[in-house]
């Protein structure tokens, strides 16, 4: 039954529970879809054994009346999460062949909730990229193509590019993503799916390969808002092994979903209207505003005055943290080693890291090393941390007046592979709308809003107060009901 791949997480969970189909049928359907779509390069490795074992456990649990929240749901796991006994590369050659002896908390939570794993999803190397082109395992192709009759290969966005492509191509009903400066939301927007970055600290970072620890946050990507709520509930939770994990109960986001947002105040930040953004982005934004009004929300223009400094702030803080975090790849404890004949320990470090890291990762480590180096620390890193405080304060002030913010997710639709890969700053600008919420640790979701003149998806972003994922999800649901986004990529693979 190939149509199981058209089902989302809620439909699969309910169908397995009600006996409409077996979990094994579901797993087999998706495994076969994954195999047929290898040209997309969405997976670094496939793990059908894991998905089938979880499916069989789900079928047995149904027989014994012992179903769990995600029993029968096969998922894709971004290759940033350490998975016990399964290769975990973070998209880098330096971790080629690395098989963790432990399980990340987030993937462990999902598996404990009954989910199985279809495979590990391709991504930009160490999550540093916005197009999946920095992956050591090759770029991921978006299942989408422009409607101009050409076959130009398009990016699914990044860094969670494999995650985005897998959901859009119906290779998995849901996947994990991670978001440091937009890596869940921008790819979700590029492929017409939904993805939420929760409040910083909701999902444990333990076992998630570190990029920029003060920003890194896991979240789900799926076909719709309800599926994201279901997955996020299973992923989130306090973890003593992560010092920044929030010791708070996980809300029942799915049960509390409610698209009645009458009386909510939704802010439209004027600084997000920036030059050079295609008119179509403004058009869907205006449409989104109209939908929110239609849902009974009050629309308020607001100001976040430090918005223009968010991206440069991010490109100091994230590389600085990365240069520190990635110091662990030394060729000693795990990962690849390159030891020049007759060389000493320093030679081994330098050769290992030169061979193991790709150009974008090296660039960011070098920037981070520079801005943290003696004499420049105050001018760059400390200044950036102060501006970051101002950016967070902007949000705090605005959230005294409004409940949510509505903005575009990305400044363009998906672009072609190779179009921006030679200009780092042009690539960085992809995250201009996503980075501010990351710097402030706020929950933010991207929902599909429509398509552009070439038939490519465009997304809008809803940002909420810290810990108020529920309002974000509810408004996103109201949005989804009005957008009625049904466009999907025609299968060509």
């Amino acid at each position, binding site marked *: 039954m190939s149509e199981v791949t058209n089902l989302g997480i809620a439909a699969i969970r309910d169908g397995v529970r009600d006996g409409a189909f077996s979990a094994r049928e579901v797993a087999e359907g998706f495994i076969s879809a994954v195999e047929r779509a290898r040209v997309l390069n969405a997976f670094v490795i496939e793990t059908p054994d894991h998905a089938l074992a979880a499916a069989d456990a789900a079928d047995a649990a149904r027989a014994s009346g012992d179903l769990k929240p995600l029993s029968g749901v096969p998922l894709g796991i971004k290759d940033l999460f350490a998975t016990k006994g399964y290769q975990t590369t973070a998209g880098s050659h330096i971790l080629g062949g690395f098989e963790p002896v432990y399980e990340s908390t987030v993937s462990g939570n999902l598996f404990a909730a009954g989910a199985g794993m279809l495979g590990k999803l391709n991504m930009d190397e160490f999550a540093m990229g916005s197009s999946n082109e920095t992956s050591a395992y090759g770029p991921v192709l978006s299942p989408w193509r422009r409607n101009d009759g050409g076959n130009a290969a398009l990016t699914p966005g990044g860094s969670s590019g494999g995650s985005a492509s897998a959901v859009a191509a119906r290779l998995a009903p849901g996947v994990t993503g991670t978001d440091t400066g937009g890596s869940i939301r921008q790819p979700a927007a590029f492929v017409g799916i939904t993805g939420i970055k929760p409040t910083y600290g909701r999902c444990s970072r333990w076992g998630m390969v570190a990029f920029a620890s003060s920003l890194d946050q896991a979240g789900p990507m799926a076909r719709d808002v309800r599926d994201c709520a279901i997955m996020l509930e299973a992923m989130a939770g306090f973890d003593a092994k992560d010092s920044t994990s929030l010791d708070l109960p996980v809300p029942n986001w799915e049960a509390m979903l409610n698209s009645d947002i009458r009386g909510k105040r939704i802010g439209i930040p004027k600084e997000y209207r920036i030059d050079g953004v295609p008119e179509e982005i403004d058009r869907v934004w205006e449409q989104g505003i109209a939908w929110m009004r239609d849902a009974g929300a009050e629309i308020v223009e607001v100001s976040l005055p430090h918005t223009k400094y968010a991206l440069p702030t991010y*490109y100091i803080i994230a590389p600085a943290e990365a240069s520190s975090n990635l110091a662990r790849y030394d060729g000693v404890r795990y990962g690849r*080693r390159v030891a020049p004949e007759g060389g000493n320990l320093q030679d081994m470090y330098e050769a290992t890291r030169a061979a193991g890291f790709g150009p974008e990762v090296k660039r960011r480590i070098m920037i981070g090393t520079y801005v943290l180096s003696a004499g420049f620390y105050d001018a760059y890193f400390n200044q950036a941390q102060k501006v970051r405080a101002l950016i967070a304060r902007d949000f705090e002030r605005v959230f005294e007046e409004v409940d949510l913010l509505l903005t575009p997710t990305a400044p363009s639709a998906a672009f072609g592979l190779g179009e921006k890969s030679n200009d780092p700053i042009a690539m960085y600008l992809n995250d201009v709308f996503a980075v501010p919420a990351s710097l402030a640790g706020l929950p933010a979701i991207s929902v599909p809003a429509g398509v552009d003149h070439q038939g490519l998806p465009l997304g809008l972003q809803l940002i909420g107060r810290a810990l108020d994922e529920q309002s974000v999800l509810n408004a996103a649901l109201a949005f989804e009901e009005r957008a009625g986004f049904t466009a999907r990529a025609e299968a060509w693979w």
Partner: protein
Amino acid sequence: MQRSTDASAAPMSVDTETVRKIAKLARIAVSDAEAEALAPELNNILGWVEQLQEVDVSGIAPMTAVIPNALRLRDDVVTDGGIRDAVLENAPVAEHGFFAVPKVIE
């Protein structure tokens, strides 16, 4: 551009010598050609982030925690350990129960 911080700390243009120095600090071997290529790339990025200097940050403390969260204390007891083989499992080279590296003492 007006600078709000100590002008003596004003970043200079990065030359290939500086690239080599940063690469050394970062323990990444770079060839001469790579250093030549990296210098303008790093300058572009550093020139772009330079705009932060125009922000008035007087009286603002640098952010330390994005979501207020107190560091927890736990009982001072052993909670882990005795897993030497698991720790060494992914080592490129392990000998006699230790990580092995090129000789560092003659």
